[in-house]
């Protein structure tokens, strides 16, 4: 038996295999981050999170103004970064903006709505059980219960909520929500961007590393917009030692709000 062909071909095969492996590694996109799991097997979003975007002030591109940091905007679809308002809705947005000192629900400590609660300049904590994912915001103890146990909403026109009714599921590593039953009162930001009670929101939460959630929300509202549109922003994990959600009980800090009682003179 002639061994020479084997001696030649074996190294050649190994070299080819190594080259192919190298090409394969270099050519592919990075593998998606695989989220850690909760004890019950859900991708683990638990923690205290906050955006660094200026979406709270204006979802669209905006220059800085007094008390408002500039932002390049968080609308990723349509590509021009503008909310696709119907003409009459665009007029209303302009009126909202002009009258915002008096008209902005945020100035009255009202609930922020969905998706606004997610990108408030306040931290939020996510807790997960097999029944629901719970989002607890520091702002006015707002909460969202994302129900994992049902798929449908209340009948249209039966229940109207500031923050909407949220049902949720896990699509692999992505937490997907579907939110409806809105009352149409909340604003999407401080600039007067808004939706009607016909708003329907779908959200996608995905960890891109252990300390960052990529958050996307697509908003549909045939009364207000010409087409669905999407925002995208990042939520960063708070890593300060012993960080906790505090309280921002907005209505308790005004001039005439109830304070601790003055103690009576003892008889």
């Amino acid at each position, binding site marked *: 038996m002639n061994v020479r062909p084997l001696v030649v071909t074996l190294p050649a095969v190994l070299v080819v295999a190594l080259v192919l492996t190298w090409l394969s590694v270099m050519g592919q996109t990075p593998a998606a981050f695989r989220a850690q799991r*909760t*004890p019950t097997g859900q991708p683990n979003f*638990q923690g205290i999170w906050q955006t660094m975007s200026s979406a709270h002030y204006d979802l669209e591109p905006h220059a800085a103004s007094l008390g408002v940091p500039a932002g390049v905007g968080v609308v990723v679809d349509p590509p021009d970064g503008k909310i696709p308002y119907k003409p009459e809705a665009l007029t209303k947005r302009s009126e909202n903006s002009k009258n915002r000192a008096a008209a902005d*629900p945020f100035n*009255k*400590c*009202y*609930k922020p709505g969905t998706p606004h609660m997610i990108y408030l300049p306040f931290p939020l*904590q996510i*807790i*997960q*059980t*097999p*029944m*629901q994912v*719970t989002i*607890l915001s520091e702002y*006015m*103890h*707002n*909460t969202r*219960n994302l*129900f*994992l*146990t*049902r*798929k*449908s*909403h*209340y*009948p249209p*026109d*039966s*229940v*109207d*909520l*500031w*923050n909407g009714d949220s049902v949720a599921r896990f699509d692999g590593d992505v937490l997907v929500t579907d939110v409806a039953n809105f*009352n*149409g*009162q909340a604003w999407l930001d401080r600039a007067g961007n808004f939706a009607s009670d016909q708003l329907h929101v779908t959200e996608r939460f995905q960890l891109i590393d252990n300390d960052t959630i990529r958050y996307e929300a697509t908003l549909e509202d045939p009364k207000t917009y010409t087409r669905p549109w999407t925002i995208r922003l990042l939520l960063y994990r708070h890593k300060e030692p*012993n960080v*906790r*959600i*505090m*309280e921002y*009980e*907005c*209505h*308790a800090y005004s001039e005439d*709000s*109830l*304070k*601790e*009682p003055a*103690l*009576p*003179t*003892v*008889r």
Partner: protein
Amino acid sequence: MKNRFLALGGASAFFIAAIVLTPMISAGQGEPPQGQGPPAGRGGGRGGAGGRGAVPAGPFTKLSDGHPDMNGAWSIRGGLANISTNIVEPADKQIPYTPAYKQLREESPKRMYEEPELHCYQSGVPSHMWRQGYNGAGLLIQQTPEYVVFMTEFMGSYRIVPLNNRPHIPESIKLFMGDGVGHWEGDTLVIETTNNNGITWLDNDGDRHSDALKVVERFTLTDANNGTWEATFTDPKAYTQPWKVSAPMTRNANPNAELLEFACVEGNQDKATYTEAVGGKAKEAPIAAPSEFLAPQRGGGGRGGRGGNAPAGPPPAGPPPQ
């Protein structure tokens, strides 16, 4: 449903409940979204979740971290009307008030304007746990290895308790729900809450504490659906000695009930109806509720105000507005 809010006690509870229940009643007219609806006789309400289902009777189970599983909806009958009924120490079942706080407590009928609920404030620790009468959703306990979270529909309040027994936040920071830190002592969950703000009440009868209040609670399950809750109150400004209450905790009758949004600040017109006789600013209480306030407030958000709620009197009789 009326009995439920009457059981809540405070005069203002009625209208809050009425507005909150309005959408629920409407919801009950349609099919629940999915799964089993709430039990008959609950007067409509949100569709059940078809979720967890009842927890089988028997010994309590443990989570993967080895601690008793308290996840789910509970009732703790802690003395909403008057906490004294649950006192186990001292033996005379009286809160050992200091003179100034005893006086403050006795003036409660004249100080109903100071009732936190009127101002849409969270109810504080522990009384937030007892204000749970809505649609059977009760006190929702969510438990992970790192945290226990308490949520009630009333005021949409929540309390997040880390279980690493971390140090409390600086004393200068006062919170409606205090700073609770917890740990497990065997199968008993122990929570110590400080940094209370001294504005919240212990019950609807006007029992008080100061901002020096420390509450130590102990939650001990006896089986899967029952347990005991105890709390010891220490407050050198308000009390002459520590005192202790105890109450049974039981799993909720409807394990699939969901918490619904509770809007209060959004449309609260109540404060203006409180007269000077109870510490408010109104010269006289409105006689009757303007009908427009009692109409369902679709799209209006929150409660539409409660109009003729005479604060010093009993809650209005009759069914909630339809």
